[in-house]
């Protein structure tokens, strides 16, 4: 009995005195987002893309990294960003060119998705000529090599740790779809924008994505919006006190009183697709059916934005995902199925019966080599979801059978895809 006298207060202190730790990764860098590319002309940008060997900084970011440009559109203006995807801890860099220097300077931040590590980075692009580093003007004579040198740091501290990247080879050019889950990435991964927000859609390309998967639900008054969970909860939204299912609130109520975890509004599907078409270079949108109900309004929006994309000269495919038999029934109930690209997550027989252009099995079912090859032989595209484990991402990419991977860690998929030889 005596030992309990000591145990009880100790357990109470642990249980009730122990604070729940809040994990945060606040952005240490504010992007200037100036339109155009400054000194980073198209030729410079093209030359910079590639696979680089890491000398200084390899313990933090691995021995190889991928450099890839992406852009954001605002009207006729475009803003360019350089991303660095690493093979270690799902780390990536987001950088922008500095317009205030004579040399090619990149400023931004780095982040590791497997933890809350984040920090500033400042890099300079140079060319190695006869063993000596010199300024790079965009013209790289044969025998010269691009070297990116600079510093990185932790948090908001001034960068002080050396990072050196040396160009090794061009990126793997094989067509492959890198699809980011939840419109770009999960809120749980402490990204600077909330999942299923317009802001994360605009960020998706900088995280390596070439496409996004969006979670579509209906509000009480039938407005299609993006939201993943069944209920309003503190994992996804700021504390407002409101609870219960999203479907029990009207769009007017949600737009007035509910904000996503980083302060954004829950976007309508139309707002999200508007951003995809007019602000990004994304090539693929997967509308995940989280609702139970008629598919007609989603089909109408899908067709409207496919048309807008064509008018804007965009190479964009928007597909409706069929993850369940309920979604399948909703699809079958559509009066007209023309111009309605679909993606079937169910078995191969159903996919064939529907004549779906895309089959997307879950990755836990394994490589399914025979089925994948059979579906591809019939002219179908095959994606796998939702694959986050780097070892399996590498394995699935190296097997060269799938046409794309849906992942919460698009920087990891980008790294393994672009470095594949």
């Amino acid at each position, binding site marked *: 009995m005596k030992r*309990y006298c000591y*145990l009880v207060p100790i357990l109470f202190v*642990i249980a009730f005195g*122990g604070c729940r730790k809040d994990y945060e990764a606040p952005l240490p860098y504010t992007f200037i987002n100036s339109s155009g590319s400054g000194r980073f002309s198209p030729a410079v940008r093209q030359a910079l893309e590639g696979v680089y060997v890491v000398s200084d900084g390899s313990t933090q970011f691995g021995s190889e990294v991928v450099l890839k440009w992406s852009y954001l559109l605002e009207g006729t203006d475009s803003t360019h960003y350089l991303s660095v995807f690493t093979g270690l801890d799902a780390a990536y860099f987001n950088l922008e060119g500095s317009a205030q220097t004579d040399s090619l300077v990149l400023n931004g931040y780095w982040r590791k998705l497997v933890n809350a590590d984040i920090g500033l980075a400042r890099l300079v692009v140079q060319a190695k000529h006869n063993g000596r580093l010199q300024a790079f003007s965009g013209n790289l004579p044969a025998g010269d090599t691009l070297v990116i040198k600079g510093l990185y740091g932790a948090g908001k501290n001034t960068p002080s740790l050396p990072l050196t990247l040396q160009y090794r080879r061009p990126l793997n050019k094989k067509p492959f779809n890198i699809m980011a889950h939840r419109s770009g990435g999960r809120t749980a991964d402490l990204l600077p924008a909330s999942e299923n927000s317009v802001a994360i859609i605009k960020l998706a390309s900088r995280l390596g994505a070439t496409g996004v998967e969006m979670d579509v639900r209906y509000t009480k008054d039938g407005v299609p919006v993006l939201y993943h969970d069944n209920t309003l909860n503190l994992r996804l939204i700021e504390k*407002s*006190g409101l*609870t219960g299912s999203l479907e029990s609130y009207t769009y007017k*109520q949600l737009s007035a009183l509910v904000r996503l975890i980083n302060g954004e509004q829950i976007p309508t599907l139309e707002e999200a697709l508007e951003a995809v078409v007019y602000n990004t270079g994304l090539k693929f949108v997967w509308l995940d059916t989280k609702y139970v109900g008629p598919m007609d309004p989603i089909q109408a929006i899908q067709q409207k934005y496919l048309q807008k994309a064509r008018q804007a000269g965009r190479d964009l495919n928007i597909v409706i995902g069929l993850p369940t038999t309920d979604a399948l029934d909703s699809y079958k109930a559509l009066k007209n199925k023309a111009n309605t690209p679909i993606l079937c997550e169910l078995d191969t027989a159903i996919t064939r019966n529907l004549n779906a252009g895309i089959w997307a099995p879950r990755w836990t079912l394994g490589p399914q080599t025979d089925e994948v090859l059979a579906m591809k032989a019939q002219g179908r595209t095959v994606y796998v979801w939702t694959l986050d484990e780097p070892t399996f991402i590498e394995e699935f990419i190296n097997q060269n059978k799938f046409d794309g991977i849906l992942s919460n860690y698009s920087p990891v998929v980008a790294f393994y895809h672009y470095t594949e030889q």
Partner: protein
Amino acid sequence: MNVRLPIINWLVVLLLLSLSASAQQVRRARRIVPDSIDTKKDTRRGPYTIVASAGSGLSYYSTHVLIPDALEQSHLSRFGVPASFRLMWHPDHRLRIGLESGWVPMYSYRGQITGEPARVNISVIPVLVVFSMPLAWLSGTERSVARRMAVTVGSGYYLNQSRLRYAGDVIGSKNSLGWMAAGSYTHPIGRRFRVAGELKWYDAVSAENAAFTAEVQLVWRAFSW
């Protein structure tokens, strides 16, 4: 980190249940002592009592609140009038066990959104397994003040409810694990009735709702045997 608190809460519940069981065992062991060895000791168990209590008072929401920016002329109220009832088994040792439920208003806010009135009320319904122990376990005697003071802890489920009145009326709910801790003083006013004052902390952990309450309770010793 997030799973640690519920696990430890349940560990505490199990530990207290084990304490309760072992207290019974001690008495049982004493009971089987042969009469020839200890003939003068009273080996009868009891008394056991079922005690029901109900109370009300004032609650104060004690954690952070975020009022949506869209709300103009907003007004926040952290106070409310809670109601609770509890059914306890008072055995012949000091660790008591029971169930508690009730209704605890957490907070409410109101204001205007583009000229339209809006109001949100948040409340919880706790359903808790509670353990209580008079302080006399430490130092008191049957007539001491400490005997009338007790600490109570509980763990279990909270049903978190929200009610929105803006462009319609929406009631939503969410389950959450949580705990409760309280200190009370009970004063006898009759053979079967007592009046108690209790200070209590309710914490619905995953919903991040927590309130401090001060209640006056009527305690009824319903059955004894």
